[in-house]
């Protein structure tokens, strides 16, 4: 089944990639999501470098609103209409407040890039609580939650646990 079909069929999902397919996963997932209103949360790269990456790869960003948890750990920056900055990937409560406000608007997709990066910053139990809560809120708001995960030998068990909070675990394959 194609990635698009799998995304269409599920409300909340985790898309598992590895280091070699991670960038392709981001590109292909956002290509699908950007057909509608999409909120993209980054715990990995800054919003500006992600913007460059997607533009270079022909992913239109006109329907995308970014939430950036990285830039403010490097420099002080004011939020804009295209990107809301939060203090740090560790500030889960601050992120939850910002996400709640976003989910009051008709976003169809909420993408976390990546949930495995989030685990490296924040306490695992708090991340589990957070994902459960956001997953529930997305369900209420009829917004699809897509968690991107980069699997390695250290985080397999954690990803499996997160998989129990969502409707589907999708393993990314190139040219799906």
């Amino acid at each position, binding site marked *: 089944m*194609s990635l*698009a*079909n799998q995304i*269409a069929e599920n409300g909340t999902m985790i898309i598992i990639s590895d280091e070699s397919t991670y960038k392709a996963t981001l590109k292909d997932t956002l*290509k*699908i999501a950007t*057909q*509608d*209103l999409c909120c993209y949360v980054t715990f990995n790269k800054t919003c500006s470098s992600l913007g460059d990456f997607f533009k270079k790869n022909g992913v239109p960003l*006109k*329907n995308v*609103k970014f939430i950036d948890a990285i830039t403010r*750990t490097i420099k002080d920056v004011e*939020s*804009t*209409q*295209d990107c*809301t900055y939060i*203090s*740090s990937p*560790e*500030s*889960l*409560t*601050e992120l*939850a*407040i*910002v996400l*709640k*406000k*976003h*989910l*009051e*608007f*008709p*976003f*169809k997709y909420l993408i976390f890039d990546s949930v495995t990066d989030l685990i490296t*910053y*924040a*306490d695992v*139990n*708090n991340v589990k*609580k*957070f994902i459960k*809560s956001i997953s529930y809120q997305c369900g*209420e*708001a*009829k917004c699809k939650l897509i968690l991107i995960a980069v699997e390695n030998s250290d985080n397999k068990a954690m990803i499996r646990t997160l998989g129990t909070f969502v409707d589907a675990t999708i393993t990314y394959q190139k040219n799906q």
Partner: protein
Amino acid sequence: MKEQENSDADLSEQTSAEDIKLKIQQNPAEPKHERKHKTKPTAQPQKTAEHSSIEDIKTKLHKNPAEHKREQKTKQTHPAQETAEPSSFEDIKKKLQQNIAEPKREQKIPITGGDYIGTGVPGIDELFTLGIPKGSSVLVVGGPGSGKTIFCLQTLYQAAKAGEKVFYITLEESPDRLKSHMKDFGMHDIEELERKGKFLIKKFSPIDITRQIDAMLEQAKGELLIDLKPLLIPNSFEPDRVAVDSLSAIAAALFGKEESYRLYIEQLFTLLHETTATSFLISETPDPTQKLSVSGAEEFLADGVLIFYNVRHGNVRESAFEVLKMRGSGFKKKIVALQINAEDGIIVYPEQEVFTSI
């Protein structure tokens, strides 16, 4: 190509939010009523009004009342999902930016005028069933930088704006500095409230208070009834709301005289109970999860306890708020998120749980 097909298939099953957007993209100037009509599911267009009402009755008859309530609550929780008709994604982004920068909440409990009062601080009053019983003495606990002083200034300011007379007793910072803080947090007309006789800020030296306490204790020679009123509240001013910032400063000045401090605190609470003023007494404590006050008696003497947390995890700190106790009023027993916003001061999110270990 395949993706395009999928996308087309998706479009035939648009949710109402998608319909809104699609419709807006097609014709942004289309009248409101038409847009609403098209957001309805199109799968059963032949449904008559009568038919749908019978279906509604059947659904309602089979629906568990709790489930029905839950559904209604969900609708209230996401009003924008039901009613938002943003004209473009640019508008949505603009509104989001405004909502994040200036979150506004409705004041459900009147700040003044009843047997129960509101704090006027966004989100806090929603944690109470009725409000804070008028005349209560409330201990405001927290570590450094947790928002205790801003909270007290904010609630007194809101009360003064609502017509009450308020009195801020400071034992640490100067009145000018406090007024400067207030302006930083959007309370720009503090001087006007002062001129109108609604807001009084007075600085007391903890050392002077200590000397007076010592002298009075010496005079009283073991008697517990000490008239503390002249020490704090001017005779000419009958406040509706008082803040004392802070009990910890008095305790520090009475270091080594724990018995004197204990007697003073007992008398202070007795005095506050006798007045009709609602009082907020700041207790600074390094870790409110371990200790709420200097002597350990303050939290038992007070009618209410509000805790401001400022928890460090990793490289960041997150703030949280809790109503621990409030005699004579129901309240939600949970720790909720708090933010200190440069423009608006303290904002509490009564429905937002905290993703940190407290």
